[in-house]
Each structure stands twice: as structure tokens, then as C-alpha cells.
């Protein structure tokens, strides 16, 4: 390293004498405002991309209808009983699928050079990421509201309190935020939205379907039960069921959050490393 860090900075040749030198870093208020602007961008993208609106609204509805009316009777005895069981699972699965948006959005920005543009601006280094994740949280909430509304229309009964429903929202957001680090890593490494879809669903399909989201664990073969009972999707689905229709919550919620901490602890540093070195 021949870089001479001790040499005094020369005056900015391009700044007028009367103008103070530009600031050295970003203030917390600026960071918040920049993140909000990035989140605005991420939401505006939906407006211009009808297929995304479809993914966010129609796809969860299709899943509810499919599982309730096609499989529900067979799995749960009656469609009504099954809906009470499956909606928590559908919400958990849908939330995990949505985390893919963080990866596809990031991969698109990297591929198209948009990310370079952002990094050349005098903004917080983390703003592109925090803004995107904030936008993705809003997607999560939208999708959750759609799922709950459709569920209620089809006869799903929330038997707990409004506080419990809010807690369900909170748990879902907390876990998906932590899980998003895997998506950030995937987006940076894949650098291609189509690859993200392929890799993402290759992981998410087994993760979400090899759970008790759609069928009770007891109906599965023993070797699968071993995985299903610890699968974070199972634990979150059970916690959501508890918060929406009653049942044990604490152990499942804690397990879900511990999984979240584990995902963030492993993939957070990897994602930050990838962002630093691969972009």
C-alpha cells in the first residue's frame, strides 16, 4: 500500500472560495430521508410492473383458493376446518416467497448499473439496501392484509384479540427482515434476476412445503417429521395459528425468532461481505 494517508487534503479546486467544503458524512436524518426515498422508488416500481402486483395480490389469493377448495376437504376433512388450519401456513409461506423480491430487485440494480449510480452519490452506503428492505416490508404487509381479508371472506375466523393479530404482523415482519439477509446474499452473488428466481425457489419450495404449513406433521413419514418439526416455517406457521385462532404461541414464536437471529447472524455478515467485495 503506497497510499499516503497522512498527506493533507488539498482544497477542492472546483469549490468556490465562499462555499463551505462538502460534509464528510451523512447525518441520521439524511439517512432516514434517503432510505424513505429508496423505499418510494421500490413501491413506484410496482405501479409500472403489473406482474408484480399480480404476484403480490392474485398469487396469494390463488393459493388460498387452491388449498382450501381443492386440497382442503381431503387434508382437513372439511374446507372450513382446513382453512382455520392452513391460513397461518399460507401466510408464512407467502412471506418467505416475497423475500425473493429483495434478491431480484438487488440483482437487477447490480446488473443494470443502477447500484453503481447509487454508490457514486453522496448518500449513506446502506440507504439502497435499507430502502429496498423497507419497501419489501410494505409488500409483506400488503400481502398479509390481502391474505387475511380473503381468508375472512371465505370463512376464516380470527378468534383472538386485535393485539394478537398485530403481534402476528410483528412476528412475520421480524422474521422476514432477518431472513432477508439470505435474499441479499443471493441477489449479490447471482447478479441476475432470472437466476435469483431459479435459485430462490429451489431453496424456498422445499423449505416452505416440507413444513406443516399445509398438512399436519403427524401425517408425514418419520424422517420428514424430524425436519418438519424444527423447520422455521413450521414454527412460524404454528405461532401465527396461535396468534390468529388460538393455541400455543410462546415456544413457537421464540423458536421463530431464534431462527431469525440465526439467519441474520450467518447470512448478515456474508451479505455485507458480498456487498463490499462483489459490487
Amino acid at each position: 500500500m503506497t497510499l499516503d494517508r497522512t498527506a493533507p487534503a488539498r482544497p477542492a479546486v472546483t469549490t468556490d472560495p465562499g462555499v463551505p467544503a462538502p460534509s464528510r458524512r451523512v447525518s441520521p436524518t439524511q439517512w432516514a430521508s434517503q432510505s424513505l426515498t429508496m423505499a418510494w422508488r421500490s413501491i413506484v416500481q410496482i405501479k409500472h410492473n403489473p406482474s408484480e402486483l399480480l404476484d403480490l395480490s392474485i398469487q396469494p389469493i390463488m393459493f388460498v383458493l387452491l388449498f382450501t377448495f381443492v386440497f382442503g376437504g381431503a387434508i382437513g376433512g372439511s374446507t372450513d376446518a382446513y382453512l382455520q388450519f392452513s391460513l397461518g401456513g399460507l401466510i408464512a409461506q407467502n412471506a418467505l416467497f416475497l423475500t425473493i423480491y429483495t434478491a431480484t430487485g438487488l440483482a437487477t440494480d447490480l446488473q443494470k448499473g443502477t447500484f453503481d449510480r447509487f454508490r457514486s452519490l453522496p448518500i449513506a452506503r446502506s440507504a439502497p439496501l435499507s430502502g429496498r428492505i423497507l419497501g419489501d416490508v410494505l409488500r409483506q404487509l400488503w400481502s398479509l392484509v390481502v391474505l387475511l381479508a380473503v381468508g375472512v371472506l371465505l370463512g376464516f375466523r380470527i378468534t383472538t384479540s386485535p393485539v394478537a393479530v398485530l403481534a402476528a404482523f410483528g412476528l412475520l415482519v421480524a422474521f422476514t427482515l432477518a431472513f432477508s439477509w439470505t435474499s441479499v446474499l443471493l441477489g449479490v452473488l447471482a447478479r441476475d434476476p432470472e437466476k435469483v428466481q431459479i435459485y430462490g425457489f429451489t431453496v424456498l419450495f422445499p423449505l416452505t412445503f416440507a413444513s406443516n404449513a399445509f398438512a399436519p406433521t403427524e401425517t408425514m413419514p418419520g424422517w420428514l417429521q424430524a425436519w418438519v418439526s424444527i423447520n422455521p416455517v413450521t414454527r412460524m406457521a404454528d405461532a401465527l395459528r396461535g396468534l390468529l385462532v388460538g393455541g400455543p404461541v410462546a415456544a413457537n414464536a421464540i423458536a421463530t425468532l431464534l431462527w431469525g437471529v440465526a439467519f441474520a447472524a450467518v447470512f448478515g455478515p456474508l451479505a455485507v461481505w458480498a456487498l463490499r467485495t462483489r459490487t
Partner: protein
Amino acid sequence: MPPAIEADGLVKRFGATTALAGASFSATEGTVLGVLGPNGAGKTTATRVLATLLAPDEGRGLVGGFDVVTEPHRVRTLIGLTGQYAGVDEALTGTENLVLIARLLGQRRAAAKMRAAELLAQFGLTDAAGRAARTYSGGMRRRLDLAASLVGRPRILFLDEPTTGLDPASRNELWDMVRGLTDDGVTVLLTTQYLEEADQLADDIVVIDRGTVVARGTPLDLKSRAGAAVLQMRPTQPEQLEAVRAVAAELAGAEPTVEQGTVSVPAADDALMPAVVRRLDDVGVSLAELTLRRATLDEVFLALTGHRAIEADPTDDLQESA
């Protein structure tokens, strides 16, 4: 006056590949510096280092007097960047793309919208302002990209191969826009693979090859050293090849190359062709073919460096853009 951009011995390695091997150059405030070189020469890497996107392994980069490694945030307040791949968000409209940048730079909503409208008008995109950028043509996208890099009124602008992939008409439009910028005192660093582009736009040119600067000067300097044009002569009778070569060597003052019955010599001077024709006529040599054509980058390289511009293999290029 210190230079607006100064690269001092920049080294950057990607694994076993050395993208920059001690590149040094500088740009005077208010001028266009053309960085000319073939694919994989290190142009993009140099741009990314100076635009604070990539830390150099060795050496020092100063932009507007600020060190790109120790004071990147201050550098970013001064610069605009238009990358090799248009960095606009294709899902957003032209207006939204520019408003996004303006808002990120701290402008209020109304001011951001005004700045966006102003730039869209300046770049002839007003009619397309409300359309998603993915519906734009390649030329329009580049213009929007250039507009996006100007939102914050940068004093120093990095243009990384801004016309690659554009048709000649769009390219000429973009050239005009770049010329307009320096009138306002903006310093431009422009990388290009095209000798003609550097010739058209740059006040000074550095020729970069395998990560180092192999030549520098004004376009005129380089052209007179390398020959902006090449005179090609094919005698009607092959046995007169040597006579043609001798005349060309004498009048051009450079060593001609003889290939497949054709003599080629750098033509630094417009007067060379008529002089050669007269002399050959005097000595009774008739030509089957006489062509004056623009020198290729390869020929400039050959003249300046003594070796041909070697196209880097695609993996190098990937790493350079990584």
C-alpha cells in the same frame, strides 16, 4: 492550479488478473480527458476507482483535491457517473428516475420535479417523461442516464464508454451534449474504445494498455505520432511494390507495412496523398488502388506501443466490470 482529477500509480488486481498496473494521469479543470484503450485495458476499473466504487490496491486517486479512499463522501458530492451500462431504473419513468436522484441528493419534492423537467427538456426527453425507461430506445436511455448523472450539477463527470452500442445519429447527439458540458466548466473523464470519439471530444488523451498509460498528449499530438489516417496503395504490377514502399517511406517519414501486395503508411499530413500520387506518376508507377482511411485503434496502438492492441479474453472483461 491542481488538476481536477489525478490518478497516481493506481494498481488494482482481481485475483490473478491485474486490471491496473500503476496507471497515472490527470485532467485539468474544465477539460475533457479521453482515456482510450481496447477492451480489458483497465479503463472501467480506473473509472470505478476514481468514482469511489472500488478501492485501489496501490496508488492514489484525487478528485477535486480529495482522496478517493480517505474522503470518498466528499468526492461523491462533486462527481457524476454514467456507466458503461445505462444505470437508469427501467421500471421507473424518465421523470421518476431523475426525481429519485434529486430527492436522494436532498432536494425538496418541488425542486426535484423542476430539476427533472429541466433536464428532460435539455436532453430532448420531455415527450417521453411519463413513460417507463424500459420503453426507451438505446439512445434515449443513454441520454436519460447522462441526465441522471447531472442532477446534482457535478463539477466532475465520469463517462464510461458512453456511446458503446449507439447508432451514429444517437452517438453524435451525445457528443454534442458532452461538448455543451465543458462550456460550463465541468471536467469530464471519458473512456472510449474509439479513436474518433476521443479525437472529437477530448482536450487531452491518455492511451491505456494492460493497465498502464502508454501514451499521452493532445489528439493532435497523438495523431501526428500515430497517424490519424492510413494511406493504402496497391500497384498494378506487383513487381513495383518495392518502388511504392520506398516512395511512401520517403514522403511519409515512417516505415510502411507491406501486406498482400498493398503498402500502408500512416498519413499524418493531408498533403501526403497528392505528393505520393505525383511522385509515383513521375517514376512511372501506376496504382490499382489508392485509399486514405482512418487509422484503427489497433494501428494507433501499433504505432504508439510497438505491439498490437490485444483484446483481453472475455473473463478479464467480466472481472473488469465486476
